[in-house]
C-alpha cells in the first residue's frame, strides 16, 4: 500500500466523527497532526526526539512535545508525543496520525492507538507479527537495525544511530527540512566532534534515503515552513523557573532530589555558576545546598529567609508532605521563603513520572493548625519565569511562604513560549524591613503588630542592630514576639495573619479572563490545563457552545475570580485531580455555591487534551443544562 493509498483511506469519516465526538473537526494534515514515538528508555531516543522537535520549531512551526517516560533508568517502554499545530495549539493531542513503533514490547498497544487511516513506522529488520497488522492503517517498514549494523560498529553506537535513523525516515515522510537538521546536529556536536556529527548525519540519511526510495513522500500529514516561532523559545518550565530565581536575586537554594523537580535547582546551579561568579575572586554569590532530605531543605530555605536572603527550595508533592511542619513554622513566624512544587501523580509515591494537579488543597493549607498560604499557578514555562520572580516579591512583601505550583508536564516538557523579557528597572520588593538607621533613630519595633492596618508587620534582619533583636518562635507568641499561652494575645496574632492573607488577594497575579459574546456559561481552570481548555473553548464555540473562560493564577483568589463565578449560572471547573480540589477551594473561599459548579476532571497522569475537555463538557452539558446548548 502506498502512501497515496493510505491517504485515500482517510477520505472517509473524519477522526472526530469516528469517535462520535462531533466537536472535533478533521485535521488538514499540513502542519496539523500528531505522532507518537515508542522506544525503550536509556537507548538515547530522547536526543533523537528532541532533534525532531527542535527541527520542526526551527521551521517556524508551533510544536509540542510530551515525554511519557517510566521511573526507570534503562530498559522500560518510553514514549514521546509530538503535536504539530500551525494554529499554535499547544495542548497534547492523543489522536495519533503516525506511530513510530520501535519497541516490540509495546507494539500491540502502540499499533492499536493510531488513528484509522494513519501510519505505523516500524523497524523492518524483523518481521512484524501478523496478528498485529491492522487493515485501516499503513505499515511503513524500514530496516533500521539492519542498515545500522552494516554501517556502524559497536552495539551502543548502532542503537543510538537507529534512533537518528527513524528521525531520517520521518523527515522524508513529513517533509522536515534536511538542512535544519544538519545545522542542529552541527550545533550539537560542533567542529570538535566531527566524527559524531558525521555518524549522526549518516544515520539520518540512511533513514531519509530509504524512505524516499521506497515510499511516496511526503505523506499527507506533513510540515510546511511557517514564520510562527520567530519570537518564541522552546523551553521547559523548570529551566524557566530557575532563570526566574536567578533574576529575582535568589541567593540560597536548598533541595533534595525528587522527580520531577530536580532539574529546577540543577538549572539554577548551572546558571549561578555562570552568572553569579565574582570576577575578582572566582567565588560564588549564591549557595546551593543539596540537603539530606526535604525537611532539611525546607529548614535551610527558612533559615536563609530569616537572615534576609531570597531563598527557595524545589520539590514535588511527597516533599511538600515532608516539609509541612516547617511550612507551618514559616507561616507562623512570618518568614519569606519560596517553595516550588512540581506536582506529580499521588498519593504516596504514586506515579512519579506522570503529571497531575493533586496538590492544590495541600499547598493552600499546608501544615497543621490554621494555616493558609499564597500559591501561584503558572500555566506554561513563560509563566514559570514570571511567577518565580513574583513569588519572591510576594514572599517578602507578605513575609510568608509562597508556593509556585507547577507540574511535571510544565516542568519537564519543552514548550514553545514567547521569548522572555526583562525590565532592567525591576527592583525586588523587600517588604517592610526596619534597617539599622531607623532602629538607631529609635523606631519602635513590635515584630508582630499590625502597625499599618494591612496585616503586615515590620521585621528586622538578624545582626543589623541590637534594637532589632527578637526571638523567632513557632510557639505561641504575642505582638512583641514574646512567648504566650494566653488566648487574647495568641488570637490577636493569628487573626492578623488571616487579614494579611486576605489582603494578598489583590496583590497576587490576576486571573486570565477571555470572554465570548453571548456566553452564559463559564469554564474555569488552573495551571497547565490552560492550553487544552482554551482550545476546547474554541472547539465548543464552533459547536455552538459559548463559554467565558477564566484561568486562576493565584490563591488567595482575587475578587475577579469570585465575580466571574457569580456572574455565570454554571461554570465548568476543569482540573487534573480526582477530588475536584480547585472546585472545592473555590466553594470554600468564594461566595459561589456548589450547585453552580460542574466538575471536569482527568487525572490519569497524562497532560490534558482539548478532546477530553470537549467530551466531558458536552456530556455534562447534555446531562445538566442541555437546553442551553446552542443558545
Amino acid at each position: 500500500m502506498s502512501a497515496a493509498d493510505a491517504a485515500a483511506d482517510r477520505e472517509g469519516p473524519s477522526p472526530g466523527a469516528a469517535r462520535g465526538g462531533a466537536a472535533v473537526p478533521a485535521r488538514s494534515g499540513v502542519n496539523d497532526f500528531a505522532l507518537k514515538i515508542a522506544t525503550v528508555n536509556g537507548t538515547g531516543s530522547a536526543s533523537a526526539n528532541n532533534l525532531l522537535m527542535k527541527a520542526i520549531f526551527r521551521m517556524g512551526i508551533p510544536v509540542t512535545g510530551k515525554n511519557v517516560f517510566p521511573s526507570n533508568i534503562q530498559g522500560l517502554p518510553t514514549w514521546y508525543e509530538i503535536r504539530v499545530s500551525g494554529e499554535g495549539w499547544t495542548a497534547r493531542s492523543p489522536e495519533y496520525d503516525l506511530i513510530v513503533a520501535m519497541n516490540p514490547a509495546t507494539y500491540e498497544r502502540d499499533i492499536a492507538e493510531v488513528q484509522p487511516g494513519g501510519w505505523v513506522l516500524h523497524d523492518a529488520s524483523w518481521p512484524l507479527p501478523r496478528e498485529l497488522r491492522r487493515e485501516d492503517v499503513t505499515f511503513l517498514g524500514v530496516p533500521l537495525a539492519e542498515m545500522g549494523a552494516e554501517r556502524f560498529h559497536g552495539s551502543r553506537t548502532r542503537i543510538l544511530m537507529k534512533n537518528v535513523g527513524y528521525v531520517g525516515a520521518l523527515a522524508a515522510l513529513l517533509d522536515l527540512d534536511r538542512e535544519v537538521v544538519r545545522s542542529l546536529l552541527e550545533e550539537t556536536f560542533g567542529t570538535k566532534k566531527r566524527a559524531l556529527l558525521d555518524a549522526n548525519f549518516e544515520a539520518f540519511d540512511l533513514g531519509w534515503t530509504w524512505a524516499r526510495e521506497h515510499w511516496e513522500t511526503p505523506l499527507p500529514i506533513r510540515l510546511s515552513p511557517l514564520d510562527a516561532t520567530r519570537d518564541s523559545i522552546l523551553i521547559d518550565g523548570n529551566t524557566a523557573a530557575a532563570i526566574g530565581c536567578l533574576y529575582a536575586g535568589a541567593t540560597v537554594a536548598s533541595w533534595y532530589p525528587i522527580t520531577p523537580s530536580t532539574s529546577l535547582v540543577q538549572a539554577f546551579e548551572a546558571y549561578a555558576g555562570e552568572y553569579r561568579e565574582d570576577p575578582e575572586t572566582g567565588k560564588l554569590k549564591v549557595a546551593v545546598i543539596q540537603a539530606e532530605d526535604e525537611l532539611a531543605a525546607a529548614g535551610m530555605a527558612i533559615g536563609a529567609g530569616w537572615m534576609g536572603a531570597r531563598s527557595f527550595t524545589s520539590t514535588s508533592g511527597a516533599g511538600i508532605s515532608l516539609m509541612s511542619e516547617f511550612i507551618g513554622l514559616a507561616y507562623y513566624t512570618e518568614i519569606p521563603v519560596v517553595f516550588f512544587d512540581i506536582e506529580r501523580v499521588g498519593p504516596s509515591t504514586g506515579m512519579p513520572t506522570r503529571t497531575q494537579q493533586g496538590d492544590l488543597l495541600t499547598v493552600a493549607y499546608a501544615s497543621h493548625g490554621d494555616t493558609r498560604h499564597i500559591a501561584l499557578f503558572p500555566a506554561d514555562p513563560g509563566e514559570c519565569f514570571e511567577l518565580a520572580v513574583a513569588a519572591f516579591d510576594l514572599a517578602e512583601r507578605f513575609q510568608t511562604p509562597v508556593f509556585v505550583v507547577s507540574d511535571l508536564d510544565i516542568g519537564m516538557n519543552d514548550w514553545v513560549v514567547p521569548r522572555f523579557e526583562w525590565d532592567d528597572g525591576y527592583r525586588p520588593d523587600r517588604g517592610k524591613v526596619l534597617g539599622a538607621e531607623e532602629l538607631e533613630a529609635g523606631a519602635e519595633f513590635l515584630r508582630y503588630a499590625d502597625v499599618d492596618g494591612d496585616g503586615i508587620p515590620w521585621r528586622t534582619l538578624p545582626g543589623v542592630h541590637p534594637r532589632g533583636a527578637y526571638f523567632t518562635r513557632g510557639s505561641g507568641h504575642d505582638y512583641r514576639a514574646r512567648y504566650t499561652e494566653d488566648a487574647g494575645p495568641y488570637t490577636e496574632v493569628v487573626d492578623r495573619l488571616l487579614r494579611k492573607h486576605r489582603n494578598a488577594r489583590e496583590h497576587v497575579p490576576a486571573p486570565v479572563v477571555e470572554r465570548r459574546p453571548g456566553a452564559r456559561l463559564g469554564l474555569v481552570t488552573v495551571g497547565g490545563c490552560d492550553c487544552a481548555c482554551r482550545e476546547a473553548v474554541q472547539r465548543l464555540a464552533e459547536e455552538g457552545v459559548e463559554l467565558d473562560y477564566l484561568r486562576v493564577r493565584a490563591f488567595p483568589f482575587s475578587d475577579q475570580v469570585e465575580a466571574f463565578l457569580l456572574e455565570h449560572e454554571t461554570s465548568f471547573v476543569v482540573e487534573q485531580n480526582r477530588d475536584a480540589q480547585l472546585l472545592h477551594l473555590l466553594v470554600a473561599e468564594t461566595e459561589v455555591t456548589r450547585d453552580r459548579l460542574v466538575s471536569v476532571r482527568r487525572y490519569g497522569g497524562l497532560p490534558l487534551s482539548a478532546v477530553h475537555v470537549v467530551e466531558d463538557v458536552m456530556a455534562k452539558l447534555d446531562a445538566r443544562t442541555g437546553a442551553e446548548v446552542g443558545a
Partner: protein
Amino acid sequence: MSWIEKPQVRHPSLEENELGLTRRDYEGRMSTLCAGCGHDSVTAAVIEAFWKLSVPPHRVAKLSGIGCSAKTPTYFIEEAHGFNAVHGRMPSIATGANAANRDLVYIGISGDGDSLSIGLGQLCHAIRRNVDMLYVLENNGVYGLTKGQFSASADVGSVAKTGEVNRQQPIDPVLVALSLGASFVARSFSGDKGQLVPILEAGLEHRGLALVDVISPCVTFNDHEGSTKSYRYTREHEVEAVAADFVPLRAEITAEYGAGAAREVRMHDGSTVLFRKVPEDYDPTDRDAAYAYVRERQEAGEIPTGLLHIDPEAEEMHEVLGTLGTPLVELPYESLCPGREKLAEITAAFR
C-alpha cells in the same frame, strides 16, 4: 506564662570586657527550668564564654529546637537574634542562616531528645557539612518536658524514675561525631564550669562545627539512684582526660593559661588551644585515636571529658560551596541580576 520579667539591676562594679560590656549584658530572661537543672549551669557558662570573647550581642544568632534545652537560648544574650525551630530541626535552620549570612556567630542549643532521636539526621549532616557554629548538646538521657521517658542517650542498665530499666544501646554523640569526621568534638559536665567555659570559647572560635556534649543532669526525672546521667553518677565517673585552655588571638600565653602545657593547637583565626593535660601519647588532632581512647575509657566505666578532638584545618561549609566571603545577604541586588542583555543570551540557547 512561661517567662518572667527579670529585674534589671545595674552593678557599677561589674567587670567589663573589651566592648565595655558586663556579664549582665550577655544574660537573657529569667530561666523557667527546674531549680538545679544542669541546663542553667550551661547557660551560665555560655554567658561567660561570650562575654570573655567580647562578641557583640546583636551579632549572635542563637538557635534551638524543641525541649527543655530549646528553652535556654531565651536565658542568654537578650540582644541576640533567637530562633526556636521545630523538634530536631535546628541544624537545618542554622545551616540556611549561615549560608545566607556567614558573618554572624552561631550557637545552637540542643538536647539528647532533640539531637539523637528525631534530629539525629540533621545533626549528622550539619557535622558532615561542617557548618560554622557552636553546637551544644545538653545531654540528660531523658525527655523532661514530656515527663521522663528514656532518650536515645540513656545507657544500658540505667534506671528510669518509674523503675524501668533501659536495655537498648545508647547513641553517644561524641562517638557519632568522631565517626562522621567532626572537626571539633568535646564532652563536658554542667557541674564543671572551669572545664566547660574554655571549651565553649574554643568552640566559638573554631572554624566549622564544634560539637560540645554536656552531661547536664535532669534534677526532676533523672537524678536518682540507678541513673547514669545523675549528678552523683557523673561526678563519680567523670575523668577529665583532656584538659584544655583557650587562649584568644590577642592574649599572651601566660602562667594563667598553664605554661608548660602538654600540647598546643593553633586555631584557624590564630587563637590557641593549650592542652594542659592529655593522656600519654594522646593526639587531639588524631580522630581515630580519640575514638579509641573514648571507647577504651568507657569500657573501664569512666566518662572521659575534655576537648577530645580538634581539626583546625577542616574545610567548613562555605569553603566547600565556594561562596563569596561577603555574606550573601549583603550583596546588592544589582550584583545578583544578570540583566536584560544576558537574558537574551540565555534564551538564545533555546531557539
